[in-house]
Each structure stands twice: as C-alpha cells, then as structure tokens.
C-alpha cells in the first residue's frame, strides 16, 4: 500500500479541517450523559435511535467514524471519541508537528514518541512480511503508517467499548448473548453488541438485535450505491480497499504505479486492523491476490474486477447472507 490515508490532503481542507480542529481542541468529554437526538458534539452529529440503540457519526482523521452502539455505551463514548482525536493529532502525516511527522524527519527517536507508535510499527512489519512487501509503512521511502493506523484505531475504539461494557454497571457483554444482562437503558430486542465503522472499515461485536447477526453491505465499486455482496456475522471485521473518491490511490510499492487490476477487495476476519491491511495489500497485488488471500489463516476475501466479474476465497461463503 502507499499513501492510503483516509483523507487525502485535498479532501481534508475546509469542513474536514474545521471539524478536526474543533474536535481536537473542543470535544466535550466531561458530559457523561450525551445529548439526545438531534444534538451535536463538536466533532460530529448525534443521531437518536429507538429501542436502546445509539448511533453517532464523528468527523476525525479527515473522514467519519460511525458508531452503532447500545445506549448503555453512551457514558464511555466521549472517551473513545477523544482518543480518536488524539490518534489523529499524534499519527497525522499532514501535521508537521505530529509524532509521526517528527519521527519521519528524524527529530524524535521512537522512544521519544508515544508508545503506541512502536506498536503500530511492529504491526506494520508483521503485515509487510506476510504480504511480501505489498503492505509497507515506508511507501516510496517516506515513513507513513497511515495504512494501518485507521484499522488499528477502529479496533482499539471497539475494544474500549467492549471493556467498558464488561465492567459497566449494566454488564452488557460484548458477545450479545445472555438475556437480562443489560442495564436499564436496554430494552426489548435490542442487542448489546456494537459496530465501529471508520470510513468503510468495520469492527463488529455481538449482535445489533437479540438473535440477529450484523449485516454489512459491501458497496459495489462500479455502481457506488449498489451492494456487491452482504456479509453477516457476530464478532468479526469487514474491510474494503478500492479506488476511492478521487480515483486510484493505492500504489503497488514494487512498481510505484497505481494498482488497477481490481476494482475493490473486501477482507473479512476477526480483527479490523489485520483485515484492513490485508485488503490494502491484496488490492495492490491485483490478480495475484486471490491465491495469496487463500493462504491467510482466519481471513477470507472477495474481489470485484474492473469488468464487474468477482471472485472469492473458499471460506468466504461462510460470511455471505442471502440478499
């Protein structure tokens, strides 16, 4: 992968920067009771949802993180959002003063940076090895771990919600199983699981409704508002890499040229940090990705070619639901 930051420089000027600046400096984390339907927070919009569920869209990292959580998660959500803005400030490649930028210029040693940076670099190294160099934190020789940071932060945000649910007064577990284990705000058939969707890459836990798995539509890369496939599951992640809003932007690091052999690749599996990085690597590989994806344990892939034909790995069918 190369330079696959959620928001490219041109896209994050204007409203994106305003939202980011407001979020970094002005996000309210002191209010444990998040406002109700229609109210806004500095970085996003709060959207009410019936039946014990809550949705929130947060503008951060030049994109939007969408949360679909049980209402009992409301007290912890501000902390999660604040952390995402911290990640943005620390890992931004567009802010010259971020740890990542200063490390990249040699102004800081790794030990002087936030310890999370070492964690991200270590994960990048693992995936680079697994992907034969198709995924790298040094695209074009410049340090840019953005390809991992988004998935990593989605996963961390999800883990924060799960941890709070386990220790919270309501005891709403991340598995979504077990009736009667939720707090007073959870009613009827609403599930206790959550999903975190960062710019199209999603980590899900438990169930959105009792007895029903999450259903995630995969946007069709050639017909932007049509779904190419629907995947379903309970504790799983879905990541899609493809040609984004302004055209091809994933570069094959071995050739330096934009990857064009596939229109999009979707990877499903347990962890969004891995699924996202695998999807990026697979997209850069192009046609060779099918055999490679088949070899990755625990993860399955689905791809759409520019001519509209599709392929999937042998285990992908376990995730597909009738549309």
């Amino acid at each position: 992968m190369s330079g696959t930051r959620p928001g490219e420089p041109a896209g994050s000027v204007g409203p994106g920067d305003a939202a980011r600046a407001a979020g970094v400096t002005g996000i309210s984390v002191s209010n444990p009771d998040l406002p109700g339907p229609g109210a806004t927070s500095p970085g996003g919009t709060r959207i009410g949802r019936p039946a014990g569920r809550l949705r929130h869209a947060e503008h951060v990292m030049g994109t939007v993180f969408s949360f679909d959580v049980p209402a009992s998660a409301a007290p912890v959500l501000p902390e999660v959002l604040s952390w995402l803005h911290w990640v943005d400030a620390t890992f931004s490649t567009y802010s010259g003063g971020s740890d990542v930028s200063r490390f990249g210029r040699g102004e800081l040693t790794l030990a002087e940076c936030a310890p999370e940076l070492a964690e991200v670099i270590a994960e990048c190294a693992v995936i680079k090895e697994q992907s034969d160099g198709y995924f790298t934190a040094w695209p074009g020789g410049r340090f840019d771990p953005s390809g991992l940071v988004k998935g990593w932060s989605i996963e961390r945000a999800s883990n924060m919600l799960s941890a709070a649910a386990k220790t919270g007064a309501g005891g709403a577990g991340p598995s979504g199983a077990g009736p009667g284990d939720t707090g007073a705000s959870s009613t009827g058939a609403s599930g206790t699981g959550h999903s975190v969707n960062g710019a199209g890459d999603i980590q899900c836990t438990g169930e959105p409704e009792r007895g029903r798995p999450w259903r995630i539509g995969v946007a069709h890369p050639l017909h932007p508002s049509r779904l190419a496939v629907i995947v379903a599951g309970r504790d799983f992640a879905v990541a899609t890499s493809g040609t984004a809003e302004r055209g091809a932007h994933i570069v094959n690091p071995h050739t330096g040229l934009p990857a064009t052999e596939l229109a999009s690749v979707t990877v499903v599996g347990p962890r969004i940090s891995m699924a996202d990085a695998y999807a990026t690597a697979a997209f850069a590989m192009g046609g060779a990705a099918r055999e490679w994806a088949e070899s990755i344990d625990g993860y399955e892939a689905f791809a759409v070619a520019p001519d509209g034909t599709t392929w999937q790995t042998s285990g992908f069918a376990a995730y597909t639901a009738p549309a």
Partner: protein
Amino acid sequence: MRRVVLALGGTVAGLVMLLSFRSHMASTASAGVTAGSGGAGTSPGSGSAAGSGSAAGSGSAAGSGSAAGSGNSAASGAAAASAPVGAGSGTGTAVTGDAIATPYGPTQVQVTLNAGKIVKVTVLQHTDDGTNSQMIDGHALPLLDNETLTAQSAKIDAVSGASYTSAGYIKSLQSALDKASA
C-alpha cells in the same frame, strides 16, 4: 411517524447522492455544486413540485459539507414531506422531491412509501436535451430505481467500501444509514 419521516430524509439524501454521483462520474463536475444548487427556484419547469423541502433540504446538506446541517435538514425536510401527495395507486404515500439542478438539467423523483418502506421510486422529470444527457439518463435512471430499492430492502446495519473523506461521507450510503437509523 417521526421514524418514517427520518428514514425518508435519509433516503432522499441517498437519492441526491445518487444523482450527484452520476453527474460526478460522467463529468467530473463537483458533486457538491450539483447538490447544493438544488431547489425549485433554480430549476426550470419545477413549479409542479409538491411536498418539496425534502429533497431541497438534503440537497443543501450535501452541498454544505456540514454533518450538523444535514441532520437538521433531514428533520426540516420531513416536516414538509409528511404531507401526503397524491397517493394515487392506493398502495402507499407518495412524496415528491424538489427538482434538483444537475449539469444535464433538472431531475426530480417521487418516492412512494408503504408502512415506512420505500416501495417505488418514480422519476418525474429528467433531462432530455442533448445526446450526452440521454445517454446518462438511459444508464443512470434505471440504476437509480434498482439501487434505492436494493439498499432499502437489504436491511443492512453498515456499509463497507473504499475509504471516503469527511466530505465524501455525506454522499455515502453509510451516511444515509446513520441518518435513517433504520
């Protein structure tokens, strides 16, 4: 009723998105400009639009790039759209959006709701001037019908796709889902 109305707001925003996307793909014109210029006042021949405000609200939201604004617009559009307009077939309530100015001329859709679900999308007005526009209509409008119904009936919780920017999110299916909370 409020739930239905919010869902409609999200869906109409989705329709605006579709129109914007088609225009964008075909011409590389700014989708924001397309959506933001929507409204009866700028669209010739749109005087017959009833229950307007719905599409106009969403259109201005898409153009403004403000998530907070889009939420408000959906709600205000809902107030106007809640007035039934010509439930002709008896199988639902039809709501007509404003004509939206596109680079290819005004486009207007009517959405038929039954028990809170979209059962039909009708294109009332579309461009008919010039070869280029006809080609786009012929391809895009049938897709518009199918895609809207597919997304509505698929009962999905979230959408995975290629990364979008903060501005692109506003035109995304995920954005429509977040608004509708369906």
